[in-house]
């Protein structure tokens, strides 16, 4: 890719890929109805693991990424324990506190460089390997979403009690959701560390967790493409606008958020769009748009950000492997 893009846009692309992987990780939690505002801590777990591995041992980039996946998953499970007790808004605030407390722990840890952080991580992240990992992460999340695990997550989001009555082990599912999500976030964190060469506690504050929410919500939660499109818009659009007009990025981000929420409160890709697209194509093929076409995945997808809706088919589908 280095032939296609200039130095500046290559860096923007890497930022986009890292943001997109982290957003996919958060999206996975959203599928299960687990609203986390602590994902920055999961990214920090990956970033610090990568930094320690890269600086203190001679292990290659791949090993550093693999260990970051494990670290992210581990911290994810610990954070997931909160989900066993808290739901929805309270879970979001609980994980926010978890993330903030985790950073305080890092700041007080000499091995992790305290408030100054760690310097000298190998500069191994390139646009190419970031792209490959983004594609891999997308494939994993699409796979999960259409698997039994993914359908169980949807069912859990729709109605936890009902899901448990039809054989979904909710506690295990929640921990699993946070483990996989944590692994992806850890990967994103490791890529970030290997891109910037330094890791600092300040980079993993609430701002980062919030910006992931922004990319996921802006893109919409109806399809896996949502968080990726959201990341694309937030990263590329702000950089592009900034290269055109010299203005504080807060204006662009703030304006964008308000605009999108006012115009499309369910994000850019909503459930309605998917259904319209589907009816459009089925009509083209001459078949009338039949009722059963709208199955669990679509019905559940769009309502991700709305309050508890009625029971969808998602819950009923889980029972069948």
């Amino acid at each position, binding site marked *: 890719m280095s032939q296609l893009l200039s130095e500046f846009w290559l860096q923007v692309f890497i930022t986009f890929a890292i943001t997109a992987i982290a957003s996919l990780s958060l999206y996975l939690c959203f599928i299960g109805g687990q*609203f986390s505002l602590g994902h920055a801590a999961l990214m920090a777990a990956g970033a610090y693991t990568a930094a320690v591995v890269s600086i203190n041992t001679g292990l290659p980039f791949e090993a550093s990424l693999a260990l970051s996946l494990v670290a992210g998953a581990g911290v994810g499970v610990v954070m997931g324990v*909160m989900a066993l*007790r*808290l*739901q*929805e*808004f*309270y879970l979001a*605030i*609980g994980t*926010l*506190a*978890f993330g*903030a*407390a985790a*950073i*305080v*722990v890092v*700041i*007080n840890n000499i091995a992790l460089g*305290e*408030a100054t952080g760690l310097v000298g991580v190998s500069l191994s992240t390139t646009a190419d390997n970031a792209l490959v990992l983004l594609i891999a992460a997308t494939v994993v999340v699409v796979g999960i979403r259409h698997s039994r695990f993914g359908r169980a997550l949807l069912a859990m989001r729709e*109605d936890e*009690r009902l899901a448990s009555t039809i054989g979904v082990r909710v506690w295990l599912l929640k921990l699993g959701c946070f483990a996989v999500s944590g692994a992806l976030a850890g990967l994103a964190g490791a890529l970030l560390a290997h891109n910037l060469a330094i890791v600092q506690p300040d980079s993993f504050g*609430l701002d980062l967790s*919030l910006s992931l*929410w*922004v990319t996921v*919500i802006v893109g919409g939660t109806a399809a896996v493409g949502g968080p990726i499109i959201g990341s694309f818009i937030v990263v590329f659009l702000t950089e592009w606008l900034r290269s055109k007009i010299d203005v*504080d990025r*807060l*204006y662009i*981000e*703030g*304006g*964008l*958020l*308000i605009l999108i*929420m*006012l115009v499309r*409160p*369910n994000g850019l890709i909503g459930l309605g769009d998917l259904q319209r697209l589907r009816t459009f194509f089925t009509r083209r093929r001459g078949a009338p748009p039949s009722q059963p076409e709208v199955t669990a995945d679509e019905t559940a997808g769009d309502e991700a*950000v*709305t*309050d*508890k*809706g*009625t*029971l969808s088919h998602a819950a009923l589908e889980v029972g069948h492997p």
Partner: protein
Amino acid sequence: MTDFFQQLGNGLSIGFSYALIALGFTLVFGTLKVLNFAHASVLMACAFVGWWARTELHLNLGVAFLLACVFGAVLTIGIDRAVIRPVVRHSFIAPFISTLGVSLLLVAVAKQIWGTDPHTFPSSFPVGDAHFGDVTVTGIQIVVGITSIVVMLLLGLLVYRTGLGLQIRAAAQNSDMARASGVNTAVVAAATMGLAGVLAAIAGIFLAISFGVVSPFVGDTYGLKGMVAMIIGGIGSLKGAVIAGLAIGIGEVMAVAYVSSTWRDAIAFGLLIVVLMIKPRGLFGTEERYVPTAV
């Protein structure tokens, strides 16, 4: 022991500001079921308005204070009208994101007008320090403490002893039912947002005179801690907001005095995690009833 009481006084004075912020959050969230993420930036903006009135217009502190309160109320009602009402029916996340956008914009505007450096808030203060044995309570702490208590009592009277308060509580309990019984929910919404704006302004001015500085980022730390205090106290509970705010303030000052300043931020968040794991709806929050939805 002297040192302990000295720290207790300092903690209370910061705790009052946290409590006022938490009251603003809890009033809005409890009544309108909306998390106004811009509350903290309103606080910052009001602190700047107060600073501007003091230094540029050379008004006295009382007038600057009132000006900031009016500004806070108008700004918060404006935010409600512009970005909360239009999206609130979609989900609890939509107003959260749109007010987050407002909060970014307010910080951007403040940075543009006043720059990122902290500005010194005029420190000349009419009330002198008081001494109790070896414990010194500054004039600022006395005024902040007394005003906070008066404001909290007035708020309590308003919510629990007036017709408007009754309407607010009715709307908090069941908005649709309140409207059906003749409560003008638009007026209730405006009143609640206005009150929250005034509370943000008071907290903003108190923080500015307590620390002697205002900066565009003052809302970030204190606003977040105020939100944490709301959750610890239980959403919608005025009593809980005050108790949790004071507890965080005292806890932080004690942590700095007896442990290390680097652990300061762990107090609020650690306390939140512990409280939520034991009581998932906060100290005084009511357990929401499980209402089965129609299939």
